[in-house]
Structure formats: C-alpha cells, structure tokens
C-alpha cells in the first residue's frame, strides 16, 4: 500500500477542474494507455493573457489524478510566462510530497503544461512530440527529458531517474546509457554511487575472465535482448574467442548479426577485454528454440 499524504488523497477523491474546455486556447496531451497513465490538459486565457480556466482528464493511479488536479489549481490566474516556470517539484511539494516511485506523475503534469503552452504558441497546430534521441524505447523517453529531470531534481542514480520519468523501468536495456547521462551531468557526484557496471580487472585468470564474461552477458546484454523476446547463452570460451548462442526471437532475427557485433561483442570488449571476439555457436542454432512472442 502506498503512503499517500492527506492532500494527495483529497485531490484524488475530490479532484478539482475535471473535464475539458470547449474551444480551448491550448491543449496538452501526454502519456498513453499503454504506458499506464495519460493526461489531457486544456486551458483558456482571459483578455489580459492570464489563464482564466484550466481543466484536466487523466487516466492513471491516485497520484496521477491528484497531481493533475493540483496542476490546474497552480496555473489558474497565472500568465503563460509565469505558468511555464512551474516545475514538477512545485507540484509534488504542493501535495506534501509523493512516494519516490510516483514522482513520474508530477513530471507528467509539468510535461502536459509545456505541451499545452507550446500548442497555444503554435496557434493550436503543434502537438506534443518527442524531441531528439529516444533513450528508453519501452516508455518513449528522450535524452533531453532525462537530462532535464536529472537537473531539476538533482538525481544521481538510475533508480531515481526511473522513478521520475519511467526511463529504464521496462526491459532495463537502457540503464547503461542512463548511467552515462547522469555521469555527464552530475560528474563526480554520480560516480560515488554507481556500482552497477562490472569492474574491469588488469590481468585475468581464465576463470575470472569467464566469470566476467558471464556477468557482462547477464547484466549488460541479456536484459536488452529479453525486451525484444530474445535471449543469449554463453556456450564456451576458447582463448579470446567467446562462443554464444542466440535464443528465442534473436535466433530467427535478421538483425542478429548486427546485434552480435554491435551489442554483444562491443559490451564484452568494453567490460572484459578489448582482445575478445565473439562467434555464434552454429550447432545449437539448429536446436528448437524458445518461442517468445
């Protein structure tokens, strides 16, 4: 059971400004049914350019509904200039805080607001679109968005980033990339907390090398393949030759060769040793595989 503040409960059970404004000046739509929460914000300006009325419709859990309700309360009476300064922190603080794992609800509120303002400024033409490189493909989160939540909320771990914008919360295949973004922004502060990546040792015995390869496959490679219904198995290591077999969808996939070089070999070289090269086990490719669809 979540520990919600009385304010969250109040805004969930008695939300303010539910609905949608007819002929609104701005519309902001973010999230989707598939993602588990979605918010449509509409607002109307008065003749002085201040937000006269704002309404919301939200699909989501209690905190998603409560943050939407608070968002509309916070922006009413503000000019667009003032409203655009509202951060996800402001929303969460107004509610007396949210559980860490629910912080993404407050970020969704801020995103909807931005989308609605953008929509207004483009004369009602522009809809919310993803900008720049998508890092988390499961939830469609861009590098720009991740950078922003890290800065605005002073985040230092991947887990925190997931709590704030969902990135990394699906297959987990992008966790390494998120780690790098945190490091880029937070510098030394991030490094103290990071422990996820395997430590590369100077000289390895055969047993240490094999264990490190297995660990790299387990932590850095398999999660990404699993997300696409595939899998990988370490068959053997002969000198610098690492023999693996693809399973599931990967075994039939035309892109498997690309994955082999670009993902498997690259990661193993990065985390174990640059001399290693990867080959696919031909025999086991003939075996029936695990059909995950």
């Amino acid at each position, binding site marked *: 059971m979540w520990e919600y503040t009385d304010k969250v409960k109040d805004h969930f059970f008695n939300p303010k400004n539910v609905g949608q404004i007819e002929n609104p000046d701005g519309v902001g739509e973010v999230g989707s049914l598939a993602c*588990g929460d979605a918010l449509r914000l509409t607002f109307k300006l008065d003749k002085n350019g201040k937000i006269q009325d704002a309404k919301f419709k939200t699909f989501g859990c209690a905190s998603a509904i409560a943050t939407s309700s608070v968002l509309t309360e916070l922006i009413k009476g503000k000019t667009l200039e003032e409203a655009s300064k509202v951060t996800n922190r402001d929303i969460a603080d107004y509610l007396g805080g949210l559980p860490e794992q629910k912080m993404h609800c407050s970020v969704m509120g801020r995103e909807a607001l931005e989308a609605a303002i953008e929509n207004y400024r483009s004369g009602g033409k522009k809809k919310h679109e993803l900008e720049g490189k998508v890092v988390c493909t499961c939830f469609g989160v861009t590098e720009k968005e991740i950078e922003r939540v890290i800065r605005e909320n002073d985040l230092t771990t991947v887990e925190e980033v997931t709590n704030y914008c969902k990135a990394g919360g699906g297959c987990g295949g992008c966790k390494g990339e998120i780690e790098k973004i945190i490091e880029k922004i937070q510098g030394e502060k991030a490094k103290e907390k990071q422990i996820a990546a395997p430590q590369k040792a100077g000289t390895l015995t055969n047993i240490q090398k094999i264990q490190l390869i297995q660990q790299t496959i387990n932590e850095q490679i398999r999660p990404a393949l699993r997300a696409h219904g595939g899998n990988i198995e370490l068959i053997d290591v002969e000198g610098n030759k690492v023999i693996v077999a693809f399973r599931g969808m990967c075994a039939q996939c035309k892109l498997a060769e690309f994955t082999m070089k670009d993902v498997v070999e690259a990661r193993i070289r990065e985390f174990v040793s640059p001399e290693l090269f990867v080959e696919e086990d031909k025999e086991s490719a003939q075996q*029936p595989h695990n059909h995950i669809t």
Partner: protein
Amino acid sequence: METVYFDNNATTKVDERVFEQMKPLFCELYGNPSSMHTFGGQIARKISRAREQVAGLLGCEPGEIIFTGGGTESDNAAIKGALAAAPNRRKVITTRVEHPAVLAVCRDLENHGYTIVELNVDKKGRLDLGELDEQLDENTALVTVMYANNETGVIFPIEQIAGLVTERGITFHTDAVQAVGKIPLNLKQSNIDMLSISGHKLHGPKGVGVLFVHKGTRLSPYMLGGHQEAGRRAGTENVPGIVGLGKACELALNNIKEENEKVKHLRDKLEQAIMKNCPDCRLNGDKDNRLPNTSNISFEYIEGEAILLMLDQYGICASSGSACTSGSLEPSHVLRAMGVPFTAAHGSIRFSLSRYNTEDEVDYVTEKIPPIINRLRELSPFVVK
C-alpha cells in the same frame, strides 16, 4: 466500517479452530521436538500428527511431506534441489505465467548457465502441450508448472503434464499453492514428483509450507544444518505453524466440496453482476477451467490502483494487475503473457473469495462498483461521451 475481504489469493483468515490448536504451543508446550526428554518429545508427536493430516489432504504417505518456511521456500527447495541432484542436465522448462517464487528462481538460474524455456499461454491463459512435448529432451532436468494461476485462477492440466514429463524420466514439480484445498488431490495415483503448498492460503498460518516429495525422487537438501525432517530440511521446526497447517488441511479435506460449491456460487453471482452493470469490461482467463473462488476482470480506460483506492474507502479489499500497484512500471506478467492489451491489463481487478464471504458482502460490492467505475471513467481522457 466493516472489512469485506475479497483478496483470499493474497492470504486468508486463520480458521479459529486452527488457532485453538496453535495457542498452547507458545507458552506452555514450547519444547523442542528433537529433545530427548518427554517435555520435548510430546511435541514431536504433534508434528507427526500434522504430517498425517497434510498427507490426508494430498492423498500421499506422511513420509513424503517436508515442512518448510512457506510456499516460496518450497519452490526454491524443489527447483534448486532437483537441479543439484541432476548435475549433468542443464535445462529447465517452466511457463511465462508462474508465480515469482518460481519465475525469479528460473531466471536467476539462467545467469548460472542453465537454459530456461518459458512456455507460452494462449489468450485464455492455457498451455499448448505440444509445445511442452517438443521441448522435452535429454538435457532437461526439471519441468515446473503451476497447478492454478494466482492472478486468473486458470487451472492447468497438471496430471496430464506430469504424465508426459515423467514418462521421459524427467522430474516434475508443481506450485500448487492456490490449488490445494480447492482442487481434490490424490498423489498416490499421480505422476507428480514434487508439489508446493503454503499454509496461509488455506486458512492456516503464515510462515509455514510443505514440499511434497514423491518417494524415490532425487533431491539434494537446500537448507543445511540439523537433522530435522529426516535431513531434508534443517532448522528447528516451526511447531505452532506446522500444527496449525495440519489442522487447516484436515478442515479443508472435510469441507472441500461443500465450500467450493458455496464459494463458486458467490463468485459467479459477483462476476455476473459486475459484467452486467459495467460496460466495457472483460473477464480474464479460461472461464471453464478456473478455481471456484477467483475472478479477474478488466475495466477498460481506467487504472487499477485508482479503483482499489476507491474500493478501499468502502472497506472492500481486492487486488490489481496494474503497474502502479506493484511499484513496477509494467502491468502483470500473467496478463501480458495472455496477450491482454495493455489498456485492459492496467485496469484489471482480481476478486478472490473464501468460505468466510457471504451473499450480503457480494451484494454490497455489487452495489458499490458501478459508481466507482463511472466516476473514474468521467476522469479518463479515453472515454468520449
């Protein structure tokens, strides 16, 4: 406000008669059953009695019962113990819809070089036995398939699967935590090698479980230490738990048919009323092959946690397969494996009943649900009026 408890697949109320049996074992009869003195020795007899009671419900020999610390421990012990006893075989077959106590163990084994095959289910949550048959080979150490699903109540054809698997000389384990006490068993006439039970799912106490191990099944002990449970599970016995579980099994055996009929009637009544009064909802799982107490319903366009919180206001307890309730970001792995669309999975609610539920409670819940669903749909951007 009265509590209406429709969450019996999560845990159940301890039967008063079970609790009565447990009470003296804390402050009066607190001896260690392994002791040489009479004070401790009399406790060993109570454990023997409990073993007979459990064996009675399962239809097996008392010597085939190992008491454990719960369903999760039973599953861990069965899987790891069977693999340790067959070091030359490196493949495990399971399903995509198992409880985490099995699925997480299997996925961890993958990190230790095992090949894990997760069988698919169809839209109704049913297995394709042809797929299983294709996967069985000389490298397969263990097949572990749950008896009945905790989220949807869907029952797998376990006897048929056990026959198929053991015929090939492969060990078969089933997590029967949700099935025992609801489905009659006779393990003497069965090919099941190992079966897990949890005490608190059948009106017994928490923290105690059973692993049935068919005589002759090769299994390495998982918990090492003293010689308890004939060396198969070390550690001083949880005496009150074991005695309570024994009594709970005895009660289940005596009342299984009668209770199932009553509970099924209540479940069907609840389900029909909800489906009739709420538009845009769907039943998840095979309607015909289902536990008598479980109903898993998806309410489209709204989210499960919000529904649960609204129900909670009225003292109604249920569960959801939505992402938000678990703290993860993706909805239930069971519903996803069945291909339930995300839209419906996020709005799924599980009602699970027991013999303690009444017609009045069903009527009360039936009355409260439609306004809650309507209220949340008014908030949803996906519902266009």
